[in-house]
């Protein structure tokens, strides 16, 4: 009797291990990691209106960083954002809004009026794409440099060196993915796929399906 009993325990333990291994290998559910908290801020947008981190709660937000005097050829990030905006219909977002926020790292020259003119020059839809900054340079450095971990440095003479990229934040204010700018792989394809993964997780964030998604986080089943 005791032999059968222990055999049963061993079989059950093996079943659990094999199940966990299969979950990890097959990855029936994929998620994006919850990397860290997105920094909080209170900036001014292109219409001279406050734009805060709280405003974007409940939405997905794709942040990018630049300055309007970036000498040509500057990183072609606006094209990627426009492409994502145009192709959002391909993703089942379940009604969750997506906002695009371009933060200027040059508050001396990028006043709200300049940011608005810049947005108009690239046909930005201001309802969903905000351009913002703050004259509080210490806070700007905290938010962009430390919070979004995006390097930039004023080199003098109007030149600013920066590390271009995008940061994807979920509706809970958590950074879920970072994309360092590259010309080799389509950032738009990857970001659109990730928006779909996030929306799927939100749809399954309650009840028993939440357990499966938490298991996907636990087993690091991350979407490529």
């Amino acid at each position: 009797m005791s032999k059968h009993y222990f055999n049963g325990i061993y079989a059950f333990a093996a079943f659990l291990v094999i199940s966990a291994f299969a979950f990890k290998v097959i990855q029936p559910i994929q998620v994006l990691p919850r990397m860290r908290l997105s920094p909080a801020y209170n900036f001014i947008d292109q219409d001279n209106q406050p734009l805060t981190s709280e405003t974007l709660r409940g939405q997905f937000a794709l942040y990018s960083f630049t300055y309007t005097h970036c000498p040509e050829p500057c990183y072609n990030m606006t094209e990627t954002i426009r492409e994502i905006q145009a192709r959002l219909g391909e993703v089942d977002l379940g009604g969750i809004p997506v906002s695009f926020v371009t933060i200027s790292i040059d508050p001396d020259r990028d006043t709200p009026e300049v940011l608005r003119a810049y947005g108009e020059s690239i046909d930005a839809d201001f309802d969903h794409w905000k351009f913002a900054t703050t004259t509080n340079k210490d806070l700007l450095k905290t938010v962009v440099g430390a919070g979004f971990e995006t390097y930039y440095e004023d080199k003098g003479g109007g030149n600013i060196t920066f590390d271009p990229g995008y940061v994807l934040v979920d509706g809970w204010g958590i950074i879920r993915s970072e994309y360092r700018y590259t010309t080799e792989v389509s950032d738009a394809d990857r970001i659109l796929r990730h928006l779909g993964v996030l929306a799927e997780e939100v749809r399954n964030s309650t009840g028993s399906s939440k357990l499966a998604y938490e298991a996907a986080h636990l087993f690091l089943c991350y979407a490529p």
Partner: protein
Amino acid sequence: MRLKVFLSVIVVVLGLAAGFYFFRPHTFHGTVIQSPERSFDFTLTGAQGDVSPSDFRGKIVLLYFGYTFCPDICPGTLGNVAQALRDMGAKADEVQLIMVSLDPERDTPEKLAEYMKHFHPSFIGVTGSKEQLDEVASLYGIFYQKTEGSSATGYLIDHTATLLVLDREGFLKMVFPFGVTAKEIADDLKYMLRQ
């Protein structure tokens, strides 16, 4: 014979179901963060001097951002944490709550100490300059701004009302939403302390 097979299948199925129930993973009541980096460490001023989250390595640190004039949200959350710690008994010694005041104009370290002890004797309140608080709050995802209040309360401060949990090593482990109950806090903290 068939009956034996049938009963065996039933026993196995019930065993598996019971096993899954008893060994199911703990479901946290907050959002779990998987940060590979330690959370931002800061030094602010409490009634007994400088305080940093890293002073409490080896304990779970709960970080809350509020202010002593806060009419309802802060007392509610602090009261729930205090109740959770009382429910945890001796295990509560392994948890340290720090409230960062977002009201440097009115909240002195002494006033904070007086306020915090009403909730729990171990609670610590800290403050600093506006610039320090801007940095700390931003990096912990806490938005705050002054708003008009009544003549009785003076100005108010709107702020993100989450409760942050740093593990024993100083990694941000979890974010509790506003409204989390004392029991939910105690359940998650007890589970974390067992890890």
